[in-house]
């Protein structure tokens, strides 16, 4: 078995912190009284609720249906009653609320009739149709709907890469999954191979997980290559792992499928196994809960489990906890509300403390030392991008290939001036997107306006022609004073309707129109206030720079 690796440029070695949570086996969360299932858990169009408040649902029943092509379904994690369909706290960096179906569990945990599938007997397209509504999305964090990725379309996929690198510090959910459920995971990978119709399977695992490597090597069929990759963040980035294992670079602006390679996370392979061989939709996932808690570890939590309950399951946060990070410390974000649930994207929750995550030092000017460029796995020059993003010269920032940035955080990690480089890049990207949107809508408005002008012109011309014709006709008819008498009753009626409409409009004007921010329920008002304070905070820090 040849295991030649291709090293990518840059990368960093942050402290691992894997030992805190990878010792104990995955523990299954007990049934909770209440679950919150957001409709937007994947990239693409949010799911559309298909249940109503008061409905009884069963475990595995669809509560949100896929809407459009890039979308997938959301399912009830247990049996119970729908108590609300409303905006709830969700794990998102903005802290904004989002539509979710709230389910009160009945404690019986009855499931729908789950039908296992003999996938080897099905042709790939029938298999794909079958998993379309299973709610599968990439569990590595990108949550792209899996059934689309399993449909290569016109592109021929020759290689399937399964990502077990888990390069972010602290996170160990894939590690434990590979150690404990290697056989099931391997079957999931075989299903992927079948659906994609590809031959080569490469499994990349960082060498800081020897047990997982051994387990997967034991479970892998002889024609796979289970490869140990050096521990170097971000070896688990899709493009980086692809390059490490194959030496093929994903073209800029493209996907790995452009070069015949598809990448899936090990967690996704495991949930595909459950979806196909057990008939169970994606209603649970393994989440690492670690940091400043009594018993860090991995938990198999149902989708919709409130994060506060997850922390409680780990023995609760220790005294002195100072907030939570969703995801890993390199790419994660601050949790705004503990009521937010576990979603398909949540692979890790880290409870912070000032000693584990000390406050960031003061940001100093860039000295162009180039440490960021040496650490960048995309071969970018972050300090140049920073220079132009900081100056809001977004065109120049883009010319330094801003959009090739994968936001892995290596640059900000090594920066001796402690500049939050990735924040500048996120800001520049969103500004550029916003401008493009504005430009697109301005273009659209211009096209509309031009067409309107053209239409008015055309109508005027047509009217003139019509009048000319009618005038000619009446002349031909012999000049009789026709028209006035028969039109009378009709005109009278029209006048009355017009009068009524005018009166209604006047009345409406007198009653003051309420604003949509008046008379809000207290919770929504609180939410708005919280957002305003955060915004003020951000503006303060911005203006201090």
């Amino acid at each position, binding site marked *: 078995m040849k295991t030649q690796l291709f090293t990518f440029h840059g990368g960093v070695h942050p402290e691992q912190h894997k030992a805190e949570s990878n010792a104990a086996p995955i523990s299954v969360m007990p049934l909770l009284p209440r679950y919150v299932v957001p409709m937007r858990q994947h990239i693409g169009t949010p799911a559309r609720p298909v249940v109503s408040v008061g409905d009884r649902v069963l475990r595995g029943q669809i509560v949100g249906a896929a809407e459009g092509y890039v979308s997938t379904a959301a399912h009830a994690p247990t049996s119970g009653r729908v108590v609300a369909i409303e905006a709830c706290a969700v794990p998102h960096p903005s802290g904004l609320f989002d539509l979710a179906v709230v389910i009160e569990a009945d404690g019986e945990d009855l499931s729908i009739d789950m039908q296992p599938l003999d996938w080897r007997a099905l042709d790939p397209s029938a298999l794909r149709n079958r998993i379309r509504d299973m709610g599968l999305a990439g569990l590595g964090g990108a949550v792209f709907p899996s059934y689309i990725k399993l449909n290569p379309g016109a592109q021929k996929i020759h290689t399937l890469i399964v990502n077990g690198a888990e390069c972010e510090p602290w996170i160990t959910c894939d590690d434990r999954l590979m150690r404990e459920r290697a056989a099931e995971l391997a079957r999931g990978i075989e299903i992927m191979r079948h659906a994609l119709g590809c031959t080569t399977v490469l499994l990349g695992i960082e060498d800081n997980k020897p047990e997982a490597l051994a387990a997967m090597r034991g479970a892998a069929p002889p024609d796979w290559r289970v490869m140990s990759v050096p521990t170097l963040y971000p070896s688990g980035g899709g493009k980086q792992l692809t390059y490490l294992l194959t030496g093929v670079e994903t073209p800029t602006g493209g996907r790995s499928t452009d070069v015949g390679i598809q990448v899936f996370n090990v967690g996704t392979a495991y949930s595909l196994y459950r979806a196909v061989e057990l008939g169970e939709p994606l209603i649970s996932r393994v989440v690492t809960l670690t940091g400043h808690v009594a018993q860090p570890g991995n938990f198999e939590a149902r989708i919709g489990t409130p994060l506060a309950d997850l922390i409680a399951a780990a023995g609760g946060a220790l005294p002195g906890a100072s907030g939570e990070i969703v995801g890993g410390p390199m*790419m994660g974000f601050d949790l705004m509300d503990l009521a937010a649930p576990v979603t398909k994207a949540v692979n890790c929750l880290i409870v912070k403390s000032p000693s584990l995550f000390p406050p960031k030092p003061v940001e100093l000017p860039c000295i*162009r*030392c180039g440490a960021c460029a040496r650490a960048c796995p995309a071969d970018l020059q972050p300090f140049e991008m920073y220079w132009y993003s900081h100056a809001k010269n977004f065109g120049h920032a883009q010319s330094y290939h801003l959009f090739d940035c994968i936001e892995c955080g290596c640059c900000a*990690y090594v920066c001796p*001036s402690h500049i939050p480089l990735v924040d500048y890049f996120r800001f520049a990207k969103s500004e550029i997107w916003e401008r493009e949107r504005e430009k697109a809508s301005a273009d659209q408005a211009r096209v509309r306006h031009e067409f309107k002008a053209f239409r008015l012109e055309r109508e005027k011309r047509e009217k003139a022609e019509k009048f000319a014709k009618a005038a000619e006709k009446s002349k031909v008819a012999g000049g009789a004073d026709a028209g006035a008498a028969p039109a009378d009753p009709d005109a009278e009626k029209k006048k009355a309707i017009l009068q009524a409409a005018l009166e209604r409009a006047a009345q409406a004007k007198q009653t003051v129109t309420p604003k949509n921010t008046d008379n809000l329920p207290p919770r929504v008002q609180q939410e708005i206030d919280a957002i305003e304070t955060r915004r003020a905070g*951000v503006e303060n820090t911005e203006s201090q720079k």
Partner: protein
Amino acid sequence: MIGSPYTLASNSTATIMFKVLLALLPGIAAHVWLFGPGIVVSLILCSAFAIGFETLLLLARRLPLQPFLSDNSALVSAWLLALSLPTLAPWWLYAIGIGIAIVIAKQLYGGLGQNLFNPAMVGYAALIVSFPVYMTQWPAPIVLADHAIGLWDAFDIVFSGQGSISADAYTSATLLDTWKTQVRLNTAPEVLLAQPIFGWIGARGHEIVALMYLAGGLLLFWGKRITWHIPLAFLAGVALTAGVLQLIDPTQHASPLLHLFSGGVMLGAFFIATDPVTAATTPRGKLIYAAMAGFLTVIIRGFGSFPDGVAFAILLMNMCVPFIDDYTQPRVFGHPRKRSKAGQP
């Protein structure tokens, strides 16, 4: 503001600058051993002036003092200038040099990270243009001097002008100066090299200091504070240009070895040309920038009116940095490969 990454590597601008200061210590120690404690006086004076000017300008610009005074960057500029200037010069020479470096070349350009030109070299260039006489009076090595200078003598000389000892008793012309004046008088290089101010490979005394700068520079390289590109390309630029010139006319031009171990070449290669703020940043750009600086150094030495060319060469190349960087951007991951791969690390 998402905030990630939440963990940061433990390095800072202050540590980087501090390591540069540490790497200068072997050279300074050699200087004290060979030339007496005069260098300590100029280091102290320059440091004090640098902190003073930096504080004044930070106050004037209404910037917080603590983060900027503790970043050690003013000290690095101060030490580099102190090591480039003759020791035992009048105190006001140091004050003017540091004033120009810190006030004009650094703070008026926007402070740390914003300056186009290396501050120490701007200070040096201003002084050599304005006060050429003072700038060529270098104390001779102790072994050649008629009079050894102690620490208190040094303070006395620096602050009172002459002190109790005549300047002739401890200074001598530098090697590069002697070379320049003598070869123009058609003195044969062999005769010149037999003079006592020449050592084994460079100027007596200064060659050891240069070796120690080389050692300190290698420490910086192993400590990953600098990459190999700039020092190597700079030294190669000096050696190649000197070699070609010597081949063309051995009666006028010194050997590559003599060029490498005299004047500011070693200090320039490892500590001045590598200043990240003013140097090129791309791998290929660094090679071009430093090789050109090395080339210009020898050209200025050989044909210009100043004895040494390191400062002017680096300043000239500082000007070209934005241009060089722009044309040497490395290929970004996933972008099509171009034909040439020359100079890639």
